[in-house]
């Protein structure tokens, strides 16, 4: 992969930004999530070391880096899923619109409703229908009105670009769908809770290229309404879908900046070596 290729991608993205209606009434670079001196541990081993960065509202931020660099651990800290693993703990701050997710008295359950997550492998609930999968999280936020839930399911499936494919099969099990459809079902399920931020942990790594392309297209559409953080080990994907890119190596944030800059004129030697395929 040549640097010139990314330069083209970067320029195209710049043009996209200025299309009218793309970001209505939103200053382009408002911060939604501010991570300060974040450290994440598994028992005694340090997986993420002293990461500070800002994730911008309604932009796509890609986290790249070689396997084991702490990128998955990092995004699991952003919705307090890291601490679900026995022995895992977190130090530092994650500010969502200024409020610390790790502040005292903050309920992780509440955090996860505001910061949704899509996992590496599609994981629809096997005992639930497509409809129930999407409704699962939404039902908890109060409304028991069937029509409201139905509307929400339809809206979420439309946002996840799955509605046309499943509208007549809503009561079939979620696991009856293909892998790519299952992953979009999981995205619909996460969107139904109306998260402010959507975390995606290598959402395409278990999918074929066609399903991957669909998810990437979807990410482009979703960023109009939600802030997205996506972990990927695929650099082309990061270049295609993201506005900002963070490069992680050995648990540390090496470089963070606009995707175009990272892929064309990286400041750090390590970043350049990684994106040009010299290691990783």
């Amino acid at each position, binding site marked *: 992969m040549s640097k010139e290729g990314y330069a083209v991608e970067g320029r195209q993205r710049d043009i996209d930004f200025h299309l009218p209606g793309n970001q209505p009434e939103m200053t382009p670079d408002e911060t939604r999530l501010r991570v300060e001196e974040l450290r994440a541990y598994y028992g005694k081993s340090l997986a993420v070391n002293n990461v500070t960065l800002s994730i911008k509202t309604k932009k796509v931020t890609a986290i790249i880096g070689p396997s084991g660099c702490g990128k998955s651990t990092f995004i699991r800290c952003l919705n307090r*899923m890291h601490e679900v693993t026995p022995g895992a703990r977190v130090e530092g701050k994650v500010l969502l619109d200024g409020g610390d997710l790790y502040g005292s008295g903050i309920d992780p359950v509440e955090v996860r409703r505001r910061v949704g997550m899509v996992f590496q*492998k599609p994981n629809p609930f096997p005992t639930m229908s497509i409809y129930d999968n999407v409704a699962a999280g939404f039902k908890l936020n109060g409304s028991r009105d069937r029509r409201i839930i139905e509307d929400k399911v339809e809206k979420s499936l439309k946002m996840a670009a799955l509605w046309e494919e499943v509208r007549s099969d809503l009561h079939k099990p979620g696991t009856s769908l293909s892998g790519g459809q299952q992953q979009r079902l999981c995205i619909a399920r*996460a969107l139904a809770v109306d998260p402010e931020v959507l975390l995606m942990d290598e959402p395409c790594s278990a999918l074929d290229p066609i399903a991957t392309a669909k998810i990437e297209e979807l990410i482009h559409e979703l960023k109009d309404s939600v802030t997205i953080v996506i972990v990927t080990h695929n650099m082309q994907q990061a270049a295609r879908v993201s506005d900002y890119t963070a490069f992680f190596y050995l648990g540390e944030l090496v470089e963070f900046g606009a995707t175009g800059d990272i892929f064309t004129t990286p400041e750090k030697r390590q970043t350049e070596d990684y994106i040009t395929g010299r290691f990783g």
Partner: protein
Amino acid sequence: MAGNTLYGAGTGASRQHYLYRKGIEWLAWIGMLFCTGVTVFILLMILGYVLYQGASYINWEFLTALPLPAGETGGGIANALVGSAMVVVVATLMAVPIGVGAAIFVNEFPSAQLGRFVRFLAEVLTGVPSIVVGLFAYALVVRPLGSFSGLSGSVAYAFIMIPIILITAHEAFRLVPVSLREASLALGIPKWRTILWVVLPVSSRALLTGVVLAIARALGEAAPMLFTAFGNPFWNLNLKKPIATVPLLIYTYATGPYEDWHRKAWAASFVLLMVVLVTSVLTRVFLRGKSNE
């Protein structure tokens, strides 16, 4: 050359070693076949012998009539069938929530050491002789209430069932993929709802199997009934009074002095065996049907 020795067509030492290994494999195969044969043979012998001894004595009257006084021919075991069913149903109602609840605790709230300890205790409890369980239920329920009763029998059965249910439920919960729990938690679904909505439904088949296993085990136990349900030659639907159960009736009849009683003990054994077999088979068929949905 290497290819030749691999297929045993070599000469000399390598050929000899190949034959030696083949011989060992053959011996092992024969040994395992023998062990399997013995296991199947025992099961078939029990089934066949009970069938042979008991089946001829089974008729409508045997299943629907009350026992007659010793010495008179005829009569049946209807009261024991109903009694067993009642005692086991009540025991199941007690054991399932406790066993499953404890399994949830052990699996989902692993203050790891406490969880492991509880699991260990459950394993020990499965090994406690059932007569001891009966004595314990006697001290716990019969003595304070002042009378033998079906209820005390249910308590004794529940003690036998709880550890079985706990262990099978724990194994079932362990098989629920972490990814599903995480999917639920990441939606902002609280832990208790995740357990109720995701973990329990996903493991329901294995849970049901465990419950049936526990019921089958309890149904056949006579020893815990000796000091609890006690037995009763008459109709009784009151769990606060002594009640007849099939295994205890088999014990009484088999150790009694009358030839007619011995026949009835065989017949009752056959009925008991059939109930357990049919329950297990039906459960399996039901579960298979469900998995094809």
